[in-house]
């Protein structure tokens, strides 16, 4: 007996069910760890998924957590659709956050209508710049972008830490953090007495715009053609190099913008943990959302829920809060595997090994 994969497209109605299947499988698999922590999985998952949804505070907090993930998720999805394997959203996020902080700190006395757009632009451009080197290296030198974008993540983190331990170190604080940005550069709250800020609407807007580009424009069509089959795209007259470059720059820009949103909306300054893996989680969000804009919205909200839920379950049952990380990672791997069923059919065969 053996498991056999056969190439066969799944019926259309199955497609939206696959992420749901992945979620169910994930919670099944990770219940082992809940049991190890001495808790009842069903109770744990109640605290994990349902309790946060039943309170206004945690619902709003879920949107706060989802805000940067919407942006890094759509940035990664956009790049992956266009055949640019951008593993560097983390570095681009940090570049954007750094540029936004630099601008925000010099905006004292400027009106918000000047400060906020400038910061947003700065974040976007810095993210683009951070993606520019790997993009050019891929297009001109055929250097593998997976490696270059990945390595630049660490370089970005080291640059942030050099700034925070050096020229930007806030003299008042003993922690490596920058001084605060100007008060007018801070994004206003959407709901009083919560952390939900204007950046959430920005993020939704950006997802809509990027989704529009991806699905409704000729640029999007060219991008997807390059992503599916560069040789065929070239044959059809698409300028593959230029398209790849645009894909990489937009993706980097959006990830950089995410960095700006976190600075201006949550922290009001640059800290080393400003990202804390939002760029990598963006890859999870994009994969879980099957690289579609709507999927990214849903999965960003769901991943935000897991973030909140892991805190609720930790408070309620004493399960270590890192259960959330385990669930997110398992979800990524399971989704990746389950999405195979879009194009393949699983069957059991006697005798034949895989």
């Amino acid at each position, binding site marked *: 007996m053996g498991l056999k*994969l056969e*190439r066969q497209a799944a019926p259309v109605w199955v497609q939206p069910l696959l992420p749901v299947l992945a979620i169910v499988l994930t919670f099944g698999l990770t219940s082992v*760890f809940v049991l*190890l*922590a001495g808790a009842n999985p069903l109770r744990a998952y109640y605290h994990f998924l349902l309790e946060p949804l039943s309170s206004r505070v945690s619902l709003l907090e879920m949107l706060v957590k989802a805000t940067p993930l919407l942006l890094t998720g759509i940035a990664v999805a956009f790049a992956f659709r266009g055949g640019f*394997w951008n*593993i560097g959203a983390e570095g681009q996020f940090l570049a954007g956050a750094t540029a936004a902080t630099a601008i925000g700190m010099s905006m004292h006395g400027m009106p918000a209508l000047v400060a906020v757009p400038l910061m947003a632009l700065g974040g976007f451009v810095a993210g683009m710049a951070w993606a520019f*080197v790997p993009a050019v*290296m891929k297009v001109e*030198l*055929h*250097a*593998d972008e*997976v*490696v*270059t974008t*990945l*390595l*630049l*993540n*660490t*370089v970005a*983190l*080291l*640059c942030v*830490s*050099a700034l925070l*331990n*050096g020229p930007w170190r806030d003299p008042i604080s003993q922690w490596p953090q920058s001084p605060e940005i100007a008060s007018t550069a801070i994004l206003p709250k959407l709901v009083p007495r919560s952390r939900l800020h204007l950046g959430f609407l920005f993020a939704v807007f950006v997802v809509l715009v990027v989704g529009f580009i991806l699905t409704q424009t000729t640029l999007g069509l060219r991008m997807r053609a390059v992503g599916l089959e560069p040789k065929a795209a070239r044959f059809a007259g698409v300028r593959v190099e230029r398209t790849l470059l645009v894909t990489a720059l937009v993706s980097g820009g959006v990830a950089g913008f995410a960095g700006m949103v976190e600075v201006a909306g949550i922290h009001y300054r640059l800290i080393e943990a400003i990202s804390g893996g939002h760029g*990598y989680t963006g*890859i*999870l969000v994009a*994969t879980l959302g099957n690289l579609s804009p709507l999927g990214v919205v849903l999965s960003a909200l769901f991943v935000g829920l897991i973030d909140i839920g892991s805190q609720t379950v930790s408070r309620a049952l004493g399960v*270590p809060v*890192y*259960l*959330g*990380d*385990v*669930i*997110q*990672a*398992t979800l*990524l*791997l399971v989704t*990746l*595997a389950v999405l*195979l069923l879009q194009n393949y059919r699983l069957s059991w065969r006697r005798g034949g090994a*895989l």
Partner: protein
Amino acid sequence: MDAPLVGFLVGLIAATLRVATPLLFATLGELYSERSGVLNLGIEGIMFLGAFAGFAAAARAEAAGWDAYLWIGLLVAALAGILMGLLMALLTVTLGLNQHVSGLGVTLLCTGLSLFGFRLVFGESAVLPRITPFATVNPLPGVPVLGTILDQHLLTYVAFSVLVPLGAWVLYRTHFGLNLRAVGENPEAADAAGIPVFRVRTIALTAGSALMAIGGAFLSLAQLGAFTPGIIAGRGWVCIALVIFARWDPVRALLGAVLFGGVFALQLRLQAQGVQLPYELLLALPYLITIAALAVAGRNAPYPGAYLKPYRRE
């Protein structure tokens, strides 16, 4: 040369070998995976899991009064690595899934599991749990200069004088090594020649992941005698760079590990001496060198032919 300078250099060389050891273990592990055609981005997490699993097992065994607790820790770390190698192989070889997303997923999983496991095993104690780490071996006790440089952990000796020659020999001089390179260059042709592509890749990934985990465990069991969340701090990504820098060759990997290890050791020692320098920029150097090397090598970078390409029998 004056005495302080000699002392500084001797200390630097000794530290370089120490710092290079985990890099060498993990780089060889990654090199084997990539030579078989699979990029294993799980490396950062697998090193972390190795450091945790090794430490947790050793701490428990030490508390139980077993003399060989460190070796038990090392064994458990290797087993954890093997387990993750099998998972990575299931994802990227058996199912043929996207290698970089799978690898990052494995890294996230290992990181989460280690932190989760640490809380389960050691609770939320404010005191960092510690063990008595591996002692160093010194073949020339009391001899100046050479005695200091050679005062290293057994695992350092293993990495430099056993693992690298053995790794090169297996890769270039054995039947298995030939098969490994064949499935990494052209899996279709290898398959047609009767080489079990899936099995060879699975073995490469599993053995490679075990080496990564041992590299991580070196940090917790030999260097620190403790486990901290920042114990790996990007060393896995350094090894990804090192493999490219070494052009997928075990002997050049040794040179690269010494060079990169030297940069880190220099940074640490300058910092210890209170020299005012932006250390972070020094730390970024290995990454920038690798990116520059990739830019220079360009199209001629000797990537394995089937790098990043899953193999499926259609």
